[in-house]
């Protein structure tokens, strides 16, 4: 069965995050939120990296189940790590976990459980800062990711297929991203084709959508393009999505519109044998 390879230190896989850093990311996300799209995306990446680090933390520290690249695209295409990881593409997860650019103290109002709100401070590691300028060379970014994936697969032919996660507002300025997206999905390990997932942040409004199985309900052409570029969720990930309360079908894709995508990390199995939950 495809997408069932063990993810382990002996057989690690890779995650490539692509982050839209174009000028349009300067626009507010819309709705009640004053946040800019660039902030939303930077937060999402920092969350995802935290999520991966926590998931792979064991008694002696974080294990290198994954190697992770964060690639920005805007005025140029390349590593978006800040701090001591700057300029690097794939970095072993343990090194990522120990080397954020900084840890911010963030003050948040959270429910106190009794109907009120209380202020609390949390430490939030930051690996990537929000950037927004120039165009959106999404095609080039996808090609860059493809080259990382291709190189990885030469050395890890039996791994769980690499995952590319693209975070964008969708307005590619260097052509139709469909072909380069297919380019990524055409690479495969013995365990299946590489996966391409997309997070669409948009001021377009409408309901947030998580893991849809058709593009009918999507608000605009950009989201439909991104939906159609996204891989169908592998069976096991789909089962976990279902147990987490998402409604899924055979056609459910790794696409999210204005919603949280960090849950994708929870869908990955490490060690335990995949169960046919549903």
């Amino acid at each position, binding site marked *: 069965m495809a997408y069932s390879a*063990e993810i*382990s*230190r*002996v057989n690690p896989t890779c995650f490539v995050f692509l982050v839209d850093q174009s000028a349009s990311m300067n626009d507010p996300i819309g709705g009640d939120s004053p946040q800019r799209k660039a902030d939303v995306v930077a937060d999402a990446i920092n*969350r995802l990296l*935290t*999520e991966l680090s*926590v*998931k*792979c*933390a*064991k*008694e*002696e520290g974080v*294990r*290198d189940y994954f190697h992770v690249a964060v690639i920005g695209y805007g005025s140029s295409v390349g590593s978006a790590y800040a701090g001591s990881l700057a300029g690097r593409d794939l970095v072993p997860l343990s090194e990522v976990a*120990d080397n*954020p650019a900084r*840890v911010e103290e963030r003050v948040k109002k*959270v*429910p*106190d*459980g009794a109907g009120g709100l*209380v202020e*609390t*401070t*949390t*430490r939030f*590691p930051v690996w990537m800062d929000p950037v927004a300028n120039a165009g959106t060379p999404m095609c080039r970014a996808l090609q860059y990711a493809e080259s990382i994936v291709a190189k990885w*697969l*030469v050395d890890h*032919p*039996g791994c769980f297929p690499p995952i590319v996660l693209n975070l964008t507002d969708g307005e590619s300025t260097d052509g139709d991203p*469909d*072909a380069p997206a*297919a*380019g990524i*999905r*055409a*690479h*495969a*390990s*013995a365990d*299946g*084709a590489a996966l391409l997932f997309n997070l669409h942040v948009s001021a377009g409004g409408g309901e947030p959508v998580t893991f849809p199985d058709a593009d009918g309900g999507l608000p605009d052409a950009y989201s439909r393009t991104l939906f159609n570029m996204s891989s169908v969720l592998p069976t096991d990930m789909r089962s*976990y999505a279902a*147990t*987490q*309360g998402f409604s899924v079908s055979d056609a459910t894709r790794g696409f999210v519109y204005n919603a949280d995508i*960090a*849950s994708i*990390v*929870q869908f990955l*199995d*490490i*060690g*335990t*044998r995949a*169960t*046919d939950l549903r």
Partner: protein
Amino acid sequence: MATARFPSGAAYVEALQNTALCFDDPELKGARVELDKLQRPRAISGNFASVFSVTAANGRRYAIKCFTREVADQEVRYRAVSDHLAKLDHRWKVGFTYLPHGIMVEGRRYPILKMDWVEATSLTRWLDEHVHDSAAVARLADRFAELVGELEWAGIAHGDLQHGNLLVVGDGSLRLVDYDGMFVPALAGAGAAEIGHRNYQSPSRTQSDFDATIDRFSSWVIYLSLVAVAAEPALWGQLREEGGEYLLLTEDDFTDPDGSSRFSILLNHVAPEVRALVGHVQALVGIPPNLLPELKPIPVDSLSTRSAFHQPTISGLPAWMVDHVPEADPVPDKHFTQRGPVVWSATLLLVAFVVGAVLMGALAVVTPVAAAGFGAVGVVLWLADLAVLYLRGPEARAAKQARTQRDEARQARVAADVELGVATRRSDELVNAAKEIAETGRKRRQTIQATHGSELAVLNQEHSKHLAMLAGERTGISNQLRQELAQALLAAQAEHVRSKLAKIEIAASGLDGFGDKLIGSLQDAGIVTAADFDGVGYMVNGQFQNRIAQFHLTSGYSVRVPGIGEVKANRLEEWRREQERIARLTQPIRLGDGQLRVIEARFRTQMLQLGTTEQQAQAAAQQRKTLLNQRLTRDLAALDVSQRTATAQAAQEQSRHLPVLRKAQAGAERARHQYELAEQEARAQRTITYPRFVLFSLTGR
């Protein structure tokens, strides 16, 4: 959303930064959480939960398990497990309380498991540190068998026995954690909450297998691994890759036991106990989980005292040492030992003959020549006797055997090297093949895209040429229209002037000097009104040296009118001009609507036709473009499909070959060591020679 969506590990890390807020439990509220390098709560994560170390104000340390995935009927299960364990008094137990609303994350409450903290090391890490302490590993195997016996005796099962859930405490005893998947009799029929770690479970275990037997497969696997490592620590490095999430065997070995290199190495192990265990475990793979036999440990008091585990190899080193002797210590040269009675008797024989010969010579019993001959026979007999003794002797036999073993080891090494060479070459080939596939794919993609690009460019070029031509036509047409309109206006104006002038008769002009006769002559020449001529020219008459006027008629002819000289002709012409000037004052300055419409209508059809042609060209180009794009998409998709298949195939071959390569590497390494040892051993035999034996028989050294 109906189903509870559990928080992620990171969400728990965030919530635990404020234990005064997230916990209700009086002991946990405000308790201190152990932090990581970034000063955030340090998580230890499994697939279903993250565990945090929390120390209460009273100094008690807890392991707080926060769930990241839903477990069906979790509370019921934990209650049942808790009730059942309360009755047991086993050392492996870890105390816990299930708190159904134990933690608040982002305003919502979720269950936690509050466990006593176990200060311990997980099994793989412990083995990494203790692998060379065979006695300790053997003791651990015993203890593990004991633990399994206790579970069996209690009629319960853990459900996920594996290295992460078996913790080794400082005193070497075992603790069992993670009771998520535990079976207790009260849960019979509930179905398994999880089916355990992939590298420890029978391939045929499913969620419906849920009874006291679910640990059996994993028990055997773990016990076998511990026993094998105790017997030969080198296996820990040979059968596993560093950081592997398994002991000695993995899922692949269970799904394909016959093709498994690990099974085959273990099945050829020197220790018969290990061989027997391995054979047994290999056979378990085909047995339905609920029919698996109970773990039967090796029936001895303690494995650690068993000498069978330290069988000497040719060099006298135990098998597990082989890997740890990079350059074997030189083996001291061998010597002959113990001159036995047979050797003594041979020496006596010599002495007897020599003494006999001397006596015979001295007493002149025989001739000196005969006596010498007798002595020589004695020496020859003695040497022959010694030769036989030498060849039969233990030292020479050992020497011969050592040399034979060395030769065999050399052959084995050559064979292993050849095998490694083949495997390495194959592996290079596979890597290159994969690279080539990627390269070909990239090239084909480039070709497809380049072809598409150039075809598109040609199409665009042709199209814009066509458009330019049509645009030219359009300009031509509108120029023509303008021209035609101008001409029509000119014609209308000319007609106006003509009709005006036609009404003005010369006879009525009252021009000076134009009497009836002259008017008559003009009339004869066809000139009656101002419209009948449009100018006057002069011809010079060479004969009379005077100029003769010629009237240009509007009909195109030129005529001479008798009686009109230059002066009168000028006057008439001036008059006509004046009349024309006056007529021009009233001429039309634009075309009549009707006429305009007629002309424009004619051109409009032309323009419309042109527009249609342009649209058609546009559409045709678009269609060709669409076709090109469709072809590109189709070609790329087809390429994708073939690339994916090829890549997947190559990757499959590569990963199939990997164990072969590993095995060949290990084999070559082993063979090299064995040869070196055998070579040392053989070299130590160089002192075992016949002459030395002769010397030895005489001197004892």
